[in-house]
């Protein structure tokens, strides 16, 4: 069955025709052409597909596209404006928060949601916020450091 949905994606209002069984991840990647959110498991276990939906982190592989009707979605592409990287992105570059990089977009989204809630999170809070984001390279220590430094640098 087809559904007409409206989503605000990274500040742009888009009207889309989606199928009942399509996931939000598929729509973001295939229909909207935004490849930052990654396919990692399709079962909500790895967090590579994390996006912000109405301000909350969701695994977009676990959200059916029709459920996103009327939602405001932010993907990793929406973190930086055209001119400048987000402080989190800068900090990940400076503090080796990236190795192979596949988990990085999801990590950034979880970090952004955390900083929206808590401006100066403790290490323990960061660990907790990232527990649903797997990094097979094991870069957690540097990811946590990147987030801590970015939170201190924020205005």
């Amino acid at each position, binding site marked *: 069955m087809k559904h007409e949905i409206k989503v605000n994606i990274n500040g742009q209002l888009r009207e889309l025709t989606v199928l009942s069984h399509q996931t939000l991840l598929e729509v973001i990647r295939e229909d909207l052409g935004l490849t930052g959110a990654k396919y990692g498991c399709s079962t909500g276990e790895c967090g590579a597909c994390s996006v912000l939906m109405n301000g909350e982190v969701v695994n977009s592989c676990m959200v059916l596209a029709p459920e996103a009707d009327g939602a405001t979605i932010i993907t990793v592409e929406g973190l930086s404006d055209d001119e400048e990287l987000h402080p989190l992105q800068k900090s990940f570059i400076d503090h080796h928060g990236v190795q192979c990089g596949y988990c990085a977009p999801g990590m950034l989204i979880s970090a952004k949601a955390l900083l929206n809630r808590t401006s100066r999170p403790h290490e323990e809070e960061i660990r907790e916020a990232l527990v649903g984001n797997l990094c*097979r390279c094991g870069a957690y220590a540097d990811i946590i450091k990147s987030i801590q430094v970015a939170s201190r640098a924020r205005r």
Partner: protein
Amino acid sequence: MVTRKTHIIGKPFPLVEAQKKLTGVSCYAGDEPFGPELLHARILFSERGHARFRLLHVDAARKQEGVVALITGQELRARLGAVIEDREMLAAEEVLYAGQPLAVVAAESPEAAMAALSTIEVVYEDLPGVYDLEDALAADAPLVHPNMASYRGFEQLNPQPERNLAHRIAFQRGDVDKALSEAAFVLERTYSAAPLQHAPLETHGGVAQLGEQGELTLWLHVQAPFLQRQVIARALKMPPHNLRIVTQCVGGSFGSKVAVSVEGLLAAIAREAGGRPVRLHLTREEEFRAVFMTPAMRARVTMGMDENGRITAIRAVYDWNVGASVDPFIVEMQRIALAGTGPYAIPNADIQVNAVYTHLLPAAPMRGLSIAQVHWAVEQHVDELAEMAARSPLGLRQQNLVKGGDQLFPEFVMHANGLESCILETSRAIGWDPAQQRIQTGTTARGKGVAMGWSPIIVFPHCKSRATIQCDGENLCTVIVDGVDVGQGYYAFITQLIAFELNFPMEWITVLPTDTDKYEPDWQAIHHNLLWSTGRALLQATAELKRQILSYVSEIWEEPVTNLDIVDGEVISYATRRRLSVLKLLQEGTGEDSPPVFRATGVYEAPDREGGLGSLLQSFATTGYAAEVVVNLETGDLSVLQLAGAADVGHAINPEGVKAQLKGGIIQSISQTLLEEMRFENGVPVTIDFMSYPIATTADMPQQIHPIVVEIPQSTGPYGARDLSDHVLVGASAAIGNAVYRATGVRIRELPITAQRIYDALQSQAAKVER
């Protein structure tokens, strides 16, 4: 050399690849933008371990709406293998393992591809299978490869085809029997390690497209494009120059994206797709079921020691369950043999490494290259030996460890190395106290353990690394190499080296995707020592490029080239004080002529060597680990409180990058040691997602991680440096195992160390005490 103004070697250096990865730029599997022409490939995999089979309704599947091409093993008889071709690309009549491909389809949508495959009915007739080492080596075991002798490459192996022994590497020195009979202490123990999954977060995939001239291009995310081109071209009977592999970002490999897995099927189906691009991207479940496992190990180790604490003899047999294909594992077996004594100069040694065929998923080595599992055995054994003789585990190691100048093999003398610093600094970092056994608080106990490691870096004769640098006005400075950045910081190193040698700003330098079209078809890159081999090639290329630039300017200025140098992106004359921006030179030229283009290629080719196993050795990477754990004595629950890891990298060219690799290795070690185990039922994987096969999350991190960089320069390496990333795991699991022993008094000899295993061991220990 180090007196230059721009000294960036050994200083913090940013990740040159990071920005695109952090902004969502398309570069991984599944990202490729190919528009509406794109077709989608899916694979039908075997669901049985060992069976004869028939496919029904294949023609009906072919005729379904949206299907463009469908191939089964009846149409495509092709075998895969770099050394021995012991894998069928598509099974024709008999499946040898669950997860073996049976058919591949390309269709207009993923749904149409799936619908076609679900139309096909597979009728299996089960055959007896062997899944573990004991069964596979039993006298009456069914043979996994009864026709092994007919495979291409068979003559390069040392097998016993009548008994599932696929390949053996062994060496002896001294007289082990005599030394063991004279030893004051002799200890024999068996250790084992479970099969693992590499589990890169990016599952296998890519895009392939047939060109008008019959040339096939593959956009892949693999570690070894040159090797893959060779293997796929041979399997599909194509001339290698008709097959091009362009490597995009790699979202983790850990060894799973070296040997060919599904890439050959992508190439095969794209040939039938009428020139349309075809995408394949495995699901997570397919990644678990049908790519590679790492081989399970059983190690039988006997050591002898004299009254003075000198280890005099070792006999070790390492048996590996390689599943239905030994090919991806062959080259590691020499390294395993070379590492097989552990990092000790033991005068009498008898080391045997066996690969055993079973009806399981083919095995490929994982990061740590199976040397990590070898140390799980040897480095626990040394602790057990120390306990037996009432000696300090650290002291015994210091007394026996290999030192610079030790003649290990007729062809190899050990170089200066940081092994002792590694073990001393890591044990200091966790507050190691030799007198302290354990601290018990109520029902929990804490304990500390140490271990060391060495990992052979070997070079096969005529293996090559190549680097080409081009400087022009349009792209400034582009580099093409034959290795691939898989997250280890390889491209950052390349950028750093060129920026240093040419004294250019790093912003001018771009490392281009590795592309097999850029070099001759027979090139085979060296993988586990890319820094060393690419570094040597780059040093040649930069020297030649600098010569070209300075010669060009010297002719224009009519000054001897010896007066000239490049400083901060400018050619300068020390004699006349003239200056010329290289950027301006490249973009505008010097007036009369069009702007120049400079181009140079450097090649490192490994020399011919003669002799035995030791002749392959180039060097050893050395490591040290120290762990503190806490164990609940009632439940067996285990946590790592702190883990220190040290590696001798010769010279840390990018110190923060080195630490990042060490920290990542620490987390991966904890994951492998405590959590990971691939399980099967009748040869069928049952660990098929991150619930049944958990890997470490932030919740599994120790409170403290201590990355320690040791620098004992390697004379032949670029700036004295040595490779690291493949070797960081070596020794860590034994340090944790030794810590568990000191906390609990029970020795766990099977990996992973689960709460159940500790609980069971504590129970049987208590039962013994009661009796």
